[in-house]
């Protein structure tokens, strides 16, 4: 079974300068699974995603994505929505061009008819078909988030890496987003790994939760991985989570 894993991480340690961001992390993700990554600020969640993408190199341990080391994994099968939108909004571009760049892995000068069709389709998947010809700088934060999701979906990925995908999206939009994501997942068998601070989302939309605080504090079905004991360990005595918080939105 492990040969078919979409993500196979074993004993991963990542150092950023003198700082150990991740230490001895091991887990694997199978096709069709949705893994919610949770943990306090500075727990190494984004670093984990960067390690999966090959943007940072492990100090020890190994990462395999779709059976390859990160830098050799087929990039066209990996969709990525970053947390901080590093996109330059002053760049003269239309939304459809940004989405099409997800397909081309390069900036499009001119969109072919087929690309235009695929772009519109990807945008409609996230309920944003109306944004197609809107310039980037006129998108709101939530709109940009959807557009990024469309940009990741257009390549029909086998793995989606989402860093706080719901940030900036309103509640209705968030529900829509998860509906669209789950539909795409059912059709494609794509695996999803998403960083979130939303415990409810993790419990409702993820098949597994991964609790992280530089080390792996829990991994498995959300109810088990997010047990009170694991949470106390992950968040420490100064930042323990009250039961009522876990019922509501954490942020």
């Amino acid at each position, binding site marked *: 079974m492990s040969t078919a894993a979409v993500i196979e991480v074993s004993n991963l340690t990542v150092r950023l300068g003198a700082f150990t961001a991740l230490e001895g992390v091991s887990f694997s993700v199978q096709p069709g699974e949705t893994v919610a990554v949770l943990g306090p600020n500075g727990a190494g969640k984004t670093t984990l995603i960067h390690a999966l*993408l*090959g*943007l940072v190199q492990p100090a020890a341990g190994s990462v395999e994505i779709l059976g390859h080391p990160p*830098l050799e994994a087929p*990039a066209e099968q*990996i969709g*990525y929505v*970053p947390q901080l*939108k*590093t*996109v*330059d909004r*002053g*760049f*003269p*571009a*239309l939304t459809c*061009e*940004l989405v099409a*760049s*997800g397909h*081309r*892995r*390069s*900036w*499009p*000068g*001119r969109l072919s008819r087929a690309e235009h069709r695929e772009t519109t389709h990807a945008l409609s998947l996230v309920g944003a078909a109306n944004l197609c010809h*809107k*310039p980037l700088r*006129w998108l709101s934060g939530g709109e940009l988030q959807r557009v990024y999701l469309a*940009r990741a979906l257009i390549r029909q990925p086998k793995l989606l890496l989402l860093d706080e995908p719901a940030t900036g999206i309103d509640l209705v939009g968030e529900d829509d987003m998860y509906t669209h994501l789950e539909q795409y997942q059912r059709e494609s068998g794509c695996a999803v790994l998403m960083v979130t601070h939303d415990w409810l989302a993790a419990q409702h939309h993820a098949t597994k939760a991964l609790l992280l605080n530089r080390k792996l504090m829990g991994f498995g079905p959300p109810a088990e991985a997010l047990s009170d004991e694991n949470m106390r360990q992950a968040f420490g005595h100064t930042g323990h989570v009250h039961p009522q918080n876990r019922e509501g939105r954490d942020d």
Partner: protein
Amino acid sequence: MTEMLALEFMQRALLAGVLTALVAGYLGVFVVQRGMSFIGSGLAHAAFGGVALGLLLGREPLWVAVPFTVAVALLITWVRDRTSLSADTVIGIFFATSMALGILFISRLPTYAADAFTYLFGSILSVSWVDTAAVGALALVMLALLPLWGRWAYATVDREAARADRVPVRLDDYILSVLVAVTVVVAAKVVGIVLISAFLVIPPAAARLLSRRFLQMTVLSVALGALTAAAGLFASYALDAPSGATIILVQALVFLACAGYYIAFRKAASV
């Protein structure tokens, strides 16, 4: 105008000026969109150090200034990459250092350094066929690198996405800074070191104001650059005014017109 075109030095200046403007207009869209406008200015001043060294060594300044400026460009990019200092800080350090070296070299010259002033302010009379050929070679290199437009633009919009898609963004940073360095040096005689950075900034900025898409901005920037360079050279001949300054003033007029248009008609629209 025909009388002017019959003059060999004008032919050289026009060819060198327009080719430089084409290259600078093209590179400039990346310079402007990456917020690197200062690097053109910084490398131009570094070029002064190289030119002065060439004069001191009694060599053709171009052949000394090109490697000198390219080395400074690589150093700037390398230090910026390896430290947490911001680009403008690193550029500021190397800019002043190269300028200081240039002044020191010139002070060692046995004769009056009239040549150095040609490079500082530009002079169409001084543009040789060697200079024109150098600009031509640069334009050919740029033409050969046109297929990189897509990935340079991609990394300009979203560096992290481009990295995740395996675009060699660091290598491209070095390539771009070397190209800017060479452009600045070969353009020095036509436009002058003091003004060359405008070639990399004004046409792309004017084009930005009129463009919804990056391809449109690129094409407009190249066209505006070439047109203003030609118009500026004609005006400089007609008015017997310094060529570099005249070209930049023509570019500034075009920019003002674009800005006026943008503010009046397009502010609420989607550009």
